[in-house]
C-alpha cells in the first residue's frame, strides 16, 4: 500500500470519534472515498470529514482496504484444465446436437422474430383469402337477378347447360349392379327451364330468380391467398417450434 495512504490512516486514527458520528451516513463517506460521490455530495462530505474524525477515519480505512484487497495473493493452480481429445469429442456431441446448437446460436437468432412476423403474416393472408369471395362477388341487385339477367352476371359455363362429352352415354354414365343406368343428375346449372329445381335457383316471392351465393367462380387469387398463407404460416410455425426446441435443448445455465 502506498505511503501516503498509510500516513493518512495513521493521522486520522489519532483523532477522537465525534459523538454525532452515529447519525452520519457512512455510505456517503464510502462513496466519497471511492471517488463515486454524486453531484452535490462532495462538499457535504468534505465538511463531514473535517468535523467528524470517525468519518475521516472511515474514509481512510476504505481506501486502505481497497488498496490491500488488490494485493491479495493468488491461489496456485494444481490442475491442468486443457481438454483431451476424448473430452472434446464428448462435448461436441452428435451431429443433431451440433445442429441444435447452431439453430440456437446467435448467428440464427434473427430467425425467431422473422418467423414470428412471418407466422402472423401467413395467418393474415389466409384470413384474407377466406374473406375474399364476399368482397369480390358481384353485388346482386336488392331483389336478386331476373331470370334473364344472369346470363350477363354469371360466367359462361354457368349460363350454358351441362353438355355431355361426345360419345358419352345418356345419363350420368353410372350403371347399377343390375345393369340399369342411374338417372342423370342435374349439374350445377342455372337452368330456367327447370324452375322446380330449388337447389340452384330459387323463385322469390316477387317472381324473380335469385342466384345463390354458393354459386361463385373459383377465384385463383382466393386459393393462392388461403393456401399460400396457410403454408407460409405453417412453415413459420415449424421454424419457431424447431428453434424453440433447439434453445430449450441446448440451454446452458452457465451462459445465462
Amino acid at each position, binding site marked *: 500500500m502506498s505511503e501516503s495512504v498509510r500516513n493518512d490512516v495513521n493521522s486520522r486514527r489519532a483523532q477522537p470519534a465525534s459523538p454525532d458520528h452515529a447519525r452520519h451516513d457512512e455510505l456517503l463517506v464510502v462513496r466519497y472515498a471511492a471517488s463515486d460521490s454524486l453531484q452535490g455530495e462532495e462538499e457535504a462530505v468534505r465538511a463531514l470529514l473535517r468535523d467528524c474524525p470517525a468519518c475521516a477515519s472511515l474514509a481512510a480505512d476504505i481506501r486502505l482496504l481497497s488498496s490491500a484487497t*488488490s494485493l491479495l495473493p493468488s*491461489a496456485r493452480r494444481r490442475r491442468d484444465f486443457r481438454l483431451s481429445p476424448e473430452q472434446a469429442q464428448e462435448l461436441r456431441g452428435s451431429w443433431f446436437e451440433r445442429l441444435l446448437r447452431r439453430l440456437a446460436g446467435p448467428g440464427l437468432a434473427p430467425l425467431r422474430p422473422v418467423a414470428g412476423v412471418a407466422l402472423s403474416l401467413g395467418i393474415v393472408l389466409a384470413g384474407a383469402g377466406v374473406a375474399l369471395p364476399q368482397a369480390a362477388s358481384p353485388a346482386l341487385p336488392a331483389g336478386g337477378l331476373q331470370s334473364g339477367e344472369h346470363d350477363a352476371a354469371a360466367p359462361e359455363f354457368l349460363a350454358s347447360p351441362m353438355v355431355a362429352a361426345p360419345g358419352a352415354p345418356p345419363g350420368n354414365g353410372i350403371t347399377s349392379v343390375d345393369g340399369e343406368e342411374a338417372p342423370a343428375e342435374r349439374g350445377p346449372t342455372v337452368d330456367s327451364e327447370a324452375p322446380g329445381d330449388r337447389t340452384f335457383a330459387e323463385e322469390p316471392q316477387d317472381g324473380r330468380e335469385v342466384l345463390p351465393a354458393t354459386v361463385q367462380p373459383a377465384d385463383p387469387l382466393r386459393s393462392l391467398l388461403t393456401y399460400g398463407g396457410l403454408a407460409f404460416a405453417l412453415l413459420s410455425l415449424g421454424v419457431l417450434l424447431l428453434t424453440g426446441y433447439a434453445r430449450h435443448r441446448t440451454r446452458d445455465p452457465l451462459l445465462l
Partner: protein
Amino acid sequence: MWRKRYTVEDTSRQSGASLPRPAGGDAAADVTGRRPADEVQHARDRALVERALAGDLDAFNQLVLHYQDYLFALCVRVVHDREAAADAVQEAFFSAYRNLSRFRGDSFRSWLTRIALNAATDVLRLRKRRPSEPYPEWEDDAWQPPADETDSPERQALRRNAAGVLAQALAQITTDQRTAIVLYDVEGYDYQEIADMTGVSLGTVKSRIHRGRLALRALLQDDMELLRE
C-alpha cells in the same frame, strides 16, 4: 476490455481522494478507453476461437492455457475452496467449448469470466447444502503472496498474515459483494464490465462494492493495523 478504469460510465466520479488503482493509469488508452494491449489480446483470442470453431482443439487449449490461472484464482476468491474452484473452472471451460459458437462478444476473457462466475455460483449453491470448511489451507504453499525480493522474512510473514486476515473477512461478506469487490479491486474490471458480467445494473454493482467495503471494515475493525504494515 479489462484493466481499464474510469470509462464513460464513470463520469460521475469526482476529483479528490481517489483510490490507488491496481491496474495503473489509462495514459495509453485511446478515445474509446481501449488500450492497445486489449486490442492485441482480443485479436489473438478471436483468431484462436475461429480456429477452435473449425475443429482445432489445440487452439482451444491455447485459450485454456492463457486463462486457466486467472480463472482459477478468481474462482478461489469467490468460493474459498480450491477443489470447488477447480470444479467451477473445469465446468466453465467445458461450457465454453460446447458453446463456442455462441461467443459474439468483444472480449473472450469477459465472456469466460462470466461463465466461470456462474459456475462458481452454482458451486456455492451446492455447498450451502453440503457445508465444508469455511476457509481452507491458507497457510500452505498453494498461495502466492505478492513477493517483494527486498522484503525481509519478517515483513513477508506480516504481509502473509495481513492477506490471510483480509481473505478471512472477504469470506464472511455476501457472495455478491465479494464477487463485485474481487472483480473491481483485484481483477481490475470497471463498473460497467462487472455489471455486464453479473447481469445487474451499474448502480447495483457500485452499491455492492461500497456496502461490501463497509462490511469488510466492520469485520476488520480490530485488524486494520495489520493492513497498514
